[in-house]
């Protein structure tokens, strides 16, 4: 494995690379603005947003938070093991990360199907327009993250010498970004109204 020494203290080399961090900030800003808009409209129609929020199951959101945070924990462990050149261990942690990512998607899918059955689709009201748009956009990010981690795992298994640490760190940073976005979405959509 390529482990070119990188000075993270250099402003141009944050962990995961500067391009990934530019993407992370753009994503956080986009989701952040959408959430601010949701809270703003919620402040105009408090009763509607409160009653709609009660139609959500916060337990699903809480369990999904546990799934994502634990997957992020395994991702961090995977990078740490890779830095120690423990490739097999790193791959095992990557599998654990992806498994929990899939658990998140399964539970999200269950939640979506229950909402659809109850007729709570995107056009039901403004709250559910925000709910579907924001959570579905996040799900797409999780899918992209799983794809990146899948490729990383494949490359580490097939040709560990050809894998560069910075690339794995970039994939990890993308996965953690999914955590960060969820940490903003969960309390606002499921809890505060």
């Amino acid at each position, binding site marked *: 494995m390529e482990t070119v020494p990188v000075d*993270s*203290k*250099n*402003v141009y080399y*944050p*962990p*995961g690379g500067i391009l990934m*961090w530019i993407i992370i*900030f753009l994503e*956080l*800003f986009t989701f*952040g603005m959408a*959430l*601010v808009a949701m*809270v*703003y409209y919620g*402040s105009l129609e408090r009763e509607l947003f409160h009653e709609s929020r009660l139609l959500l199951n*916060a*337990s699903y959101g*809480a369990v999904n*938070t*546990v799934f994502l*945070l*634990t997957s*992020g*924990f395994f*991702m*961090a*462990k995977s*990078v*740490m093991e890779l830095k120690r050149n423990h490739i097999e261990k790193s791959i095992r942690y990557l599998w654990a990360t992806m498994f929990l990512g899939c658990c998140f998607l399964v539970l999200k899918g269950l939640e979506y199907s229950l909402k659809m059955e109850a007729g709570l689709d995107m056009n039901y009201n403004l709250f559910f327009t925000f709910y579907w748009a924001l959570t579905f956009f996040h799900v797409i990010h999780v899918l992209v993250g799983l794809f990146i981690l899948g490729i990383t795992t494949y490359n580490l298994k097939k040709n560990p010498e050809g894998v560069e640490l910075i690339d794995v760190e970039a994939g*990890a*940073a993308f996965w*953690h970004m999914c*955590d*960060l976005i969820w*940490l*903003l979405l*969960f*309390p*606002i959509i*499921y*809890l*505060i109204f």
Partner: protein
Amino acid sequence: MKQLNIIWLLLMILTFGTAFISGRDINYATLFIIGIAGLKFILVSFEFMELKKAHVLWKYLILGFLGGFSALLLFIV
């Protein structure tokens, strides 16, 4: 490695803490919920994403985003 385990445990405690607060009629619950979410955000970015090892500019940027976002939310709510 041990530090990561402690951070994960802390994140779990904070998550269950949020669930506990949201299920009860507590004064300033919104403030607590947003505060806990902010703390978790910092733990993930600084520890899991290793931002603590990065240049101070990146740390200020993420803290600035979080501070601005939280302030805006609390102002609207």
